[in-house]
């Protein structure tokens, strides 16, 4: 925990957050990559959330999101 964290994040909240973030990451990446690809294919302007490679290939310890 950061040294000056002053709100109680709640241990249950932290566990749940990690769990749902892992689950949410799968459709999130899908939307960004496939969605971006689809838009490029149709020649649309790139949606703002579309992926940059740097963001998708996260350098976090859990790279098994894909």
């Amino acid at each position, binding site marked *: *925990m*950061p*040294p*000056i*964290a*002053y*709100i109680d*994040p*709640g*241990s*249950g*909240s*932290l*566990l*749940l*957050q*990690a*769990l*749902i*973030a*892992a689950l*949410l*990451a799968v*459709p*999130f*990446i899908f939307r960004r990559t496939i969605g971006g690809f689809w838009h490029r294919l149709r020649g649309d302007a790139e949606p703002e*959330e579309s992926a940059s490679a740097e*963001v*998708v290939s*996260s*350098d*976090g*310890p*859990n*790279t098994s*999101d894909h």
Partner: protein
Amino acid sequence: MTPGEASSGVVDPASFRDPGGYIFRRDGVLYRAIQPVAAADWSAFEDRGLAAELVGAGLLVGYAPVSVDLAPRPGAALVIRPRELPIISYPYEWAFSQLREAALLTLEVQRRALSAGMWLRDASAYNVQVDAGRPILIDSLSFEVADLSAPWPAYRQFCKHFLAPLALMAHRDPRCGLMLRDFIDGLPLDLTTALLPGRTRIGGLLPHLHLHAGADRRAQRAEIQGASEPGATQSRARPMNRTRHEALLDSLRRAVEGLNLELGSHWLSYTRQTSYTEAAAASKREIVERMLAQAGGTLIWDLGANVGTYSDIAAGPGRQVIAFDQDPAVVELHWRSLSPEQRASVLPLVNDLTNPSPALGWAHTERRSMLQRGPADVAMALALVHHLAIGNNVPLPQVAELLAHAGRRVVVEFVPKEDPMVQQLLAGRRDIFDAYSLDAFRTALDEWFVTMDEAPVTDSLRTLFLLERRPD
């Protein structure tokens, strides 16, 4: 510097929780001191360009660095002077859309912070104010360097302060926003899920509210049974990464954007209901405009504003109006009816004059009451006195006293018993209001005010007064 009595600086009683810094006033000017423990995060906040980006985008209140010697307590690392906002409002006074915009602002700030390798270390709705019609973050000290392998510490606070009340307002009743008065650190998640309809278990509210409440409950049970040693959560594998943080944020944004408050058609017809003729309406408008011009001043409180017909008239160049109404649905309608330009000078807020926002929090010092945030330069009370006196049994002398605390000058309308609107109020009850008359009202006002102008409204039985409070 010789810190004399007047200029020694007074620490704001609402900023005691954060060890990273505090707010203080010196010679009437607002400052924020940053303590050594938060100095590294503050440097990162500025050096990475995040501060400039957020201020530039109008998402964070601007500030200027000033001398650290201004701090009233020893040991501050630095002091900044934030731009002070003219109006302070609280989440329990906001309409649904105002709270929703504040939630989206918080998420947008968090998104930009993540891009800079930082995050919000708290997500309190009290860190947001409505400034010139737009939500703005006022806590410059909320940022810290993120450990992206760890969960976001402010996730639960975001859900309690924003998502829970918004969900209840959208799915149950807009009046649920008032529950934030009782729960000053956001709505408890277990209570929220108990009150939400079952259909909210499908969709974006399932993880962030329903499952979240369950996880909280299990964790509390485990703590009571001693099943989890302190620090157990922290010592687990690093469960997050940048993508997961972004996915969580994206999901929260979708959950907030998926919430909409639908107001039935009866609201739309109700609010336009008046009893007077076109000639009377034109006369009233003209008198109000004249009296406001005579009254001068820059901050106007419109008490009992309804959908703000007269607030919108009162707002003009150099004038700010707060339009108070007791009904959250009516305040929502008013807010929705305003253009961005109008929002810059009219702020609709929920407040019931028969039970106005109290002073709240620790020792009643964290959130100021409605009247503590006054008086306004001008308080306007149109078609209100009969609701207080007859609808709520408040004696006229006490109505006059309240007006005297609300504004230095007052524009007030008296609606006599013979008026159809008062007849409507009396229809279902015995008339116990012998003391309700124009003469009695004049006498009540005289206790507190000098009458600058008195004018009957053409083609009606109503009278308008322009008053100035007597010196104490």
